[in-house]
């Protein structure tokens, strides 16, 4: 179970907008967190701690950069909800332990409170309970391990 405050974003947000190419040459996660969404809206980064992003369609399209979900997680994003994720971003998010939920939401506003029950496969927003598309058993295992590195550490 996790809770968060909704931040609504539009459709087709590419990974260049999540974290620009000019910030990739480092392994310092704090740099990515500090500059996340800078080219979309520089005011967003400080608001991400404890946030659940409710995005439009095709979130995370474009580059395979794993720094995109890492930046969001590092900035404190608890989960992302979109009706359709770009596939590499979707895999990457699970692999870094960031919950991504595929679901259609009729309406929501910035600041709404949301409660997510990952085990039950649903979340509650504005008095409505929404189901999300279940993850495959393998993806659930990876997410439950906290990401793919931890999943493999367990096998070492």
């Amino acid at each position, binding site marked *: 179970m996790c809770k968060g405050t909704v931040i609504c974003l539009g459709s*087709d947000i*590419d990974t*260049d*907008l999540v974290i*620009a*190419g*000019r910030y*990739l*040459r*480092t*392994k310092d996660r704090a740099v990515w967190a500090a500059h996340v969404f800078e*080219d979309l809206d520089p005011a967003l980064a400080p608001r991400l701690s404890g946030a659940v992003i409710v995005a439009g*369609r*095709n979130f995370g*399209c*474009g*580059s*395979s*950069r*794993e*720094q995109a979900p890492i930046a969001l997680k590092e900035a404190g994003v608890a989960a992302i909800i979109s009706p*359709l994720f*770009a*596939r*590499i971003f979707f*895999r*990457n998010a699970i*692999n*870094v332990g960031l919950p991504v939920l595929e679901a259609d939401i009729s309406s929501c506003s910035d600041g709404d409170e949301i409660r997510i029950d990952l085990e039950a496969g649903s979340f509650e927003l504005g008095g409505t309970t929404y189901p999300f598309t279940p993850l*495959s058993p*393998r993806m659930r295992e990876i997410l439950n391990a906290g*990401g*793919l*590195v931890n999943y*493999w*550490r367990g*096998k*070492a």
Partner: protein
Amino acid sequence: MRRTLTERILHGNTGEYVDAHVDRAYVHDGTGVLTLASFREMGVPIGIDPSRISVLFDHICPANNGITADLQRELRQYASSTGVFFSDCGGGICHQIMSEGVILPGEVVVGADSHSCTGGAFGAFATGVGATDMAAIWASGETWFRVPETIGITLEGSLSGGAEAKDLALSIVSRLGMEGATYAALEYTGPGSEAIDMDGRLCICNMGVETGAKNAIFYADAVCREYLAGYGHAIDIQTPEDCSYRQELTIDLDDLVPLVTVPHRVDSARPVADLQGTEVDQVLLGTCTNGRYSDLWRFAGIVRGSKVKVRTIIVPASASVLLRATQDGIIADLIAAGCMVVTPGCGPCLGIHSGVLGEGEVCLSTANRNFKNRMGVGGSIYLASPATAAATALTGYITEPEVFHV
């Protein structure tokens, strides 16, 4: 049961999850650094024959500053000590080097870069993943996939006038939209596909990911066999079966005209004629979409003997491309026409070096993405073919290639 080519290669039916043996796994300097970090954190030994792994530096080559140099040095040292295939700065773009006699029909090819779908031109299942997924492939030699639904694209007729394979790629992205093929495979068949050369197929498959596709694939035919024979490979031809597609699209190549995709969406192609006259500050020929020998050849054929009117950056896709174009005199023609020729690699496509745009500047590029700020904060990118890029370089504004009797 009859299957799509992707189902045949992944040994599964659409919708099934499979653990696929990975024949070729590759990273570049950008994603490889994170792959190595994740792999070391996993604390497991390499579980794959190192000869199946490639490390190919292309994103910032040569290094632009000390931080990049340090990150590259760490990965270079690791690659040199493990027996993986290593291509250093100057060798060229990872997807191009993998296309120079490495990727073979029927293989499962995974690259830590979204444009790894390029290799589908050889009748291989080729797709992109992130850095940690790649680390797990280093650990096991396998990865999981959901076998995708396939969108069948039948090509008829042949390209004519100023239209090129790039115009077809831009057209398909706009017809399907930026999410039109998410999670799906794009499979190319029909008499028109047989008329497209390997460089053209690589360009078309390269842009598959811009529709959200998992992979894009051509059947290995006589054209593919002849290309790979040039690298010493004898391959079997792949024949389409009468399979079922999620969606079908037929495109008559004779109807295609030169297109330009406008800022900042990659699914916004319009006829070049509609944009004729739009002023540009820079022209870029290169990238994993259009930095191949035939692209340089066509561009040089248009600018030869004239002078470009705006700064024009040429980035050969690989050292082999650069060498061949040098030996044939193409590079001399380009330089005489006023173009800059820079190190083989990704060039300024991702906005870090070798031609970053300033505020308000406009670039006509042969790349595959025109996302906001990608080539520099405040810059705008139009995407087009090498021929349209050459015509535009000569006038300084977006120009139909036919103006120069293409």
